[in-house]
């Protein structure tokens, strides 16, 4: 039996660094401002100040890779392509990002034209060598690269996933000359040259920053086991993160979705919408039995085709700015007051935001805001809303109600598209509302969507860090086969799965309970897109076809009984399950009683009308499990406030989550 270890989940965001520790099943949270210049400082200091230094395992979500990409401060990377194709990155898919903008710009390639190279070689779609790559050719290439300050090389040759030898030759020769080389056939052996090239280039581009950061962390955390969250909703070791640093791009938002999936399944609601609403944006993701993955992801406009949690993000957050546009409509977001100057109620800025609307409507109380540690200036909110109201010809309260209904409708649209697009009815899902602003909007958003159940986890603001703690170790492998489905194709797939399993890092091999989850990307011949189906290794090909028909019907509404089915890719997801349990919150309350007062506040009904009522204000930390309370009320805790509208009833479940349900739902 394993000794209970202390693990810490460390989520370093742009504004706050959240540390979450689980000790003997108890949850502790420590939050401190981030140190964007050197993110590790806040982490080290937080561990110390939060009394978490004894932790033996640190699971970390980092924004280092994504920042390198967004700020375009990455490694100076060269790109090597097949002769005739060095413009792959510049051409992309030949489309523009916005249709009706005469000043539109295509996303600029990460590699400047003078660092794009070609080598004479060619492989056919059957994997045959048409033009062999000669070693002298690569030596010539390496000479051409001299003196250009190249720090990393990304290689993507046509059909290299069928015949990796040519890329390997480039890799060997350039490595011998001291260059760091990233091969597309190694990190993403899948067809579609532009997306594969983009992935390997992004990987090389962020590699320098990520690898330096990991070294600093490893040094500072000596003796602790470090795990890095990846975009696919699992963690990996630093060694692997160094090889495929691009997998850490969506490290941040992944944590919350993992936590949602774990919580939803524990709470018996396997179908959930994860709603993470922060200061500037809202991330929506679906959990249907498990997290939803997409292999069509892009980051900052660059395709990165590792399996990635499927997240839809919109510019709606607590800091979203409200304004009247030129035609007289009330717009909320996507511009945001961010953390600086922040909403008007922070006392610095004067522009009205969503948070100010809540203050004016009496739903955000100064005395409970961030446990009373941060001052709030309700007068500023009122002023800002009054100004907005003046533009609209109405009172500050009416303006605030307007802001709230617009932002709720914007969010409802995001959730509806996310569900309907994937063939689901949103009303059958449970909404898991977290992030600093999620619990304040959950129930009213649910009303708009016909959702009857909202789950608010403890410490909603640190829920993503909690997910890091709970995440499994996950490794994804893939390979393009492109074969008609047949017994032979199944044999080839089994062979590939075997090799992928053997390719696991050495530390995995000592463990017994690794689960291997094989999957196939299938399509009807002639289709330009594929659908992932989870299979089992020993299945007969007919069974796979049957399953594909069903998956296709579910997603697209039809199937082709006599359509020829093709295996495009085979995938293997290897999982080393985390044994961390969902931690229970400890009680560090605001006051000694659960009811801390009452206040007059306003709700926006689904038809847009304003409803005002004197309501109870409850302190979450003193609500015992099993306790039931009726809306309208507010449930305050240190890093968030849950709004429970009239017609809703709340209950605290055994994990300390607030389960809010529409009354009369049986």
């Amino acid at each position, binding site marked *: 039996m394993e000794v209970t270890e202390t693990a810490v989940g460390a989520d370093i965001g742009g504004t706050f660094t959240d540390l979450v520790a689980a000790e003997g099943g108890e949850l502790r949270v420590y939050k401190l401002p981030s140190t964007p210049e050197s993110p590790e400082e806040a982490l080290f200091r937080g561990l110390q100040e939060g009394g978490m230094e004894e932790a033996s395992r640190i699971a970390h979500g980092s924004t280092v890779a994504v920042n390198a990409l967004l700020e375009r401060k990455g490694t100076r990377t060269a790109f090597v392509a097949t002769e*005739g*194709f*060095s*413009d792959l990155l*510049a*051409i992309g*898919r*030949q*489309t*523009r990002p*916005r*249709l*009706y*903008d*005469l*000043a539109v*710009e*295509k996303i600029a390639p990460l590699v400047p034209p003078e660092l794009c190279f070609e080598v004479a070689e060619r492989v*056919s*779609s059957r994997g045959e060598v048409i033009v062999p790559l000669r070693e002298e050719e690569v030596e010539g290439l390496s000479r051409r690269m001299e003196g250009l300050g190249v720090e990393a090389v990304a290689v993507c040759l*046509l*059909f290299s996933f069928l015949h990796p030898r040519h890329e390997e030759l480039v890799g060997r020769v350039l490595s011998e000359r001291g260059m760091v080389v990233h091969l597309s056939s190694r990190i993403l052996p899948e*067809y*579609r*040259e532009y997306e594969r090239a983009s992935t390997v280039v992004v990987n090389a581009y962020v590699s320098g920053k990520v690898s330096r950061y990991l070294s600093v962390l490893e040094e500072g955390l000596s003796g602790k086991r470090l795990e890095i969250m990846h975009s696919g909703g699992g963690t990996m070791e630093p060694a692997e993160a160094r090889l495929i640093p691009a997998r850490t791009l969506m490290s941040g938002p992944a944590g919350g979705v993992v936590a949602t999936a774990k919580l939803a399944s524990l709470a018996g609601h396997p179908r959930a919408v994860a709603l993470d609403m922060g200061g500037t944006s809202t991330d929506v993701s679906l959990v249907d039995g498990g997290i939803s993955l997409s292999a069509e992801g892009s980051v900052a406009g660059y395709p990165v085709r590792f399996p990635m949690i499927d997240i839809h993000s919109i510019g709606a957050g607590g800091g979203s700015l409200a304004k*009247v546009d*030129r*035609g*007289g*409509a*009330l*717009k*909320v977001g996507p511009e945001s007051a961010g953390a600086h100057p922040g909403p008007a109620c922070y006392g610095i800025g004067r522009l009205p935001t969503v948070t100010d609307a809540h203050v004016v409507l009496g739903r955000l109380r100064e005395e409970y805001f961030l446990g009373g540690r941060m001052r709030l200036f309700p007068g500023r909110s009122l002023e800002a809303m009054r100004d907005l109201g003046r533009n*609209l*010809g*109405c009172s500050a309260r*009416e*303006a605030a*109600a*307007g*802001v709230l209904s*617009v932002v709720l*409708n914007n969010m409802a*649209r995001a959730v*509806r*598209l996310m569900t*309907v*697009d994937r*063939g689901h009815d949103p009303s059958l899902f449970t909404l898991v509302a977290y992030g600093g602003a999620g619990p304040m909007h959950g129930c009213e958003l649910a009303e708009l969507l016909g959702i009857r159940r909202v789950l608010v986890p403890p410490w909603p603001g640190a829920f993503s860090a909690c997910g890091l703690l709970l995440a499994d170790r996950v490794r994804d492998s893939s390979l393009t086969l*492109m074969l008609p489905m047949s017994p032979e194709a199944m044999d080839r797939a089994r062979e590939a799965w075997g090799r992928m399993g053997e390719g696991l890092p050495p530390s995995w091999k000592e463990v017994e309970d690794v689960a291997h989850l094989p999957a196939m990307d299938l399509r009807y011949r*002639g*289709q*330009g*897109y594929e659908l992932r189906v989870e299979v089992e290794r020993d299945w007969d090909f007919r069974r796979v076809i049957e399953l594909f028909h069903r998956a296709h019907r579910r*997603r*697209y*509404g*039809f199937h082709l009984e006599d359509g020829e089915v093709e295996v495009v890719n085979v995938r293997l997801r290897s999982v080393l399950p985390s044994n961390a349990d969902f931690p229970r919150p400890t009680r560090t309350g605001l006051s000694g009683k659960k009811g801390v007062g009452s206040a007059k506040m306003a709700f926006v009904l*689904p038809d*847009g009308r304003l409803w005002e009522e004197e309501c109870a204000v409850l302190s979450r930390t003193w609500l015992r499990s099993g306790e039931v309370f009726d809306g309208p009320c507010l449930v305050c805790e240190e890093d968030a406030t849950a709004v429970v509208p009239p017609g809703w009833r709340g209950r605290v479940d055994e994990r300390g989550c607030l389960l809010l349900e529409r009354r009369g739902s049986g």
Partner: protein
Amino acid sequence: MAVDAALLEIFNNKLAEVAEEMGVVLGRSGHSANIKERKDYSCAVFDARGRLVAQAAHIPVHLGALPSSMRFLLEWLESRGEVLREGDVILWNDPFRGGTHLPDLTMAAAVRCEGRLVGYVVNRAHHADVGGRAPGSMALGSEVFQEGLVIPMVHYAREGRVVEEVEDLILANVRTPAERRGDLRAQHGSLTVGVRRFREVVSRHGPEEVARFMEELLRYAGRIAEESLSCIPPGTYSFTDYLDDDGRGEQDIPIRVAVTSGEGRLRVDFSGSAGEVRGPLNCPRSVTLSAVYYVLRCLLPEDAPFNHGCLERVEVVIPRPSILDASWPRAVAGGNVETSQRVVDALLGALSQALPERIPAASYGTMTNLAVGGESPRPFAYYETIAGGCGARPDRDGMDATHNHMTNTMNTPVEALEYEFPLRVMRYAVARGTGGRGRFRGGDGLERHFQFLEAAKVSLLAERRRRGPYGLAGGEPGMPGEDHLVRKGGERIRLPSKVELEVEEGEVLELRTPGGGGFGSP
């Protein structure tokens, strides 16, 4: 009132969402790659008087087509003294009744709430084949009949049930009936969802409120359009651009436009443009309108609502019959893909005189439609459009190798293409130096070279092979495109811009698309 400003925004979003959700359902349930991958479809919501309220257009060429179609539908209903009942669906593709070209099929249904008409939902999708002489229904013909099956307005469904005889008639005339049936059903399903979602909005807010806010939305869009159009200095601005040829002997075909601006309105007059041509470059009126509305939309703020309120601020005069408002039974396959681009060039050329600080030089101005078909190793049909260089802007270079204006469809990946077809791509590169020189450089065109691994039939429908896209303010024109066939013996033949050929195994087709015009003296 605050509530009104908020409700305006909410209604704007809700009706846009109805259109968007129809699009999602269509994209999700459509069978063909055209619909799923290239998103070649649009969905729209109209009010009870047939005025456009919201549209989800993924492709600019549909912008003007749906409002035109709606107008013809109402006329048709009126002429027959008919009303659409619940579950009735009308289907048509007739280019002379609001259609664009034959592969674009339109479906429409009325939305009723407690018996009362509250509006219409309409969608349109590009079907991969609707019969005719050439696979893909984009033949280089001289009459619309060669291009495929013409469908006048017919009931595709009555009271919720598909009229099977109608569907059978269509399926009997197309090359891939199973796929067509799937796409038709997907369009029907999308309308059903549109009707349901529209009704939900009505049942939540009541029909009067919805009608009031639809009216408000038109006014709202009108106000924004008025303000944006007021930035154009009053005056009349004229410009003439030319199509190279119609593939049937006629050359230097003028597209002439005079744009008159004043009081937040535009008058767009195409008088002086060429008459109808024998080749397939004729536009139905709706395609010309699409090009006008595309340019209008580029002048509006990005998130402005686009509905009847903006459209009515533009008066469009098109001589009839002409290449821009063709009469039955002219061939129209290329109007949509080629002439529409030139209409945009002419409009922008005129506007550049009024807004020299905003309007770019001409982009590549052709979709370079390539279709390859063959029998070996098994029957195949490949169709693709190829991007080019975009015009330089007054403050920056033009984009290289990117689709612009009336289209934005993705390329077929080289590896996908070689898996699927007996073709090998020898080169896919930016055609350096083809952008027009200038203070800001026009974008460079594209080179795409194909080797045929089997004998095949090739059809090419392209433009800007003689006259390059114009530059502005002293910028030089972009270089025209050039296409060659390298025969087996090594002979390299320059191809005309519109051609049907038979090629042999081992031969190479080299396409080079035009560069964009430059801006400012070099």
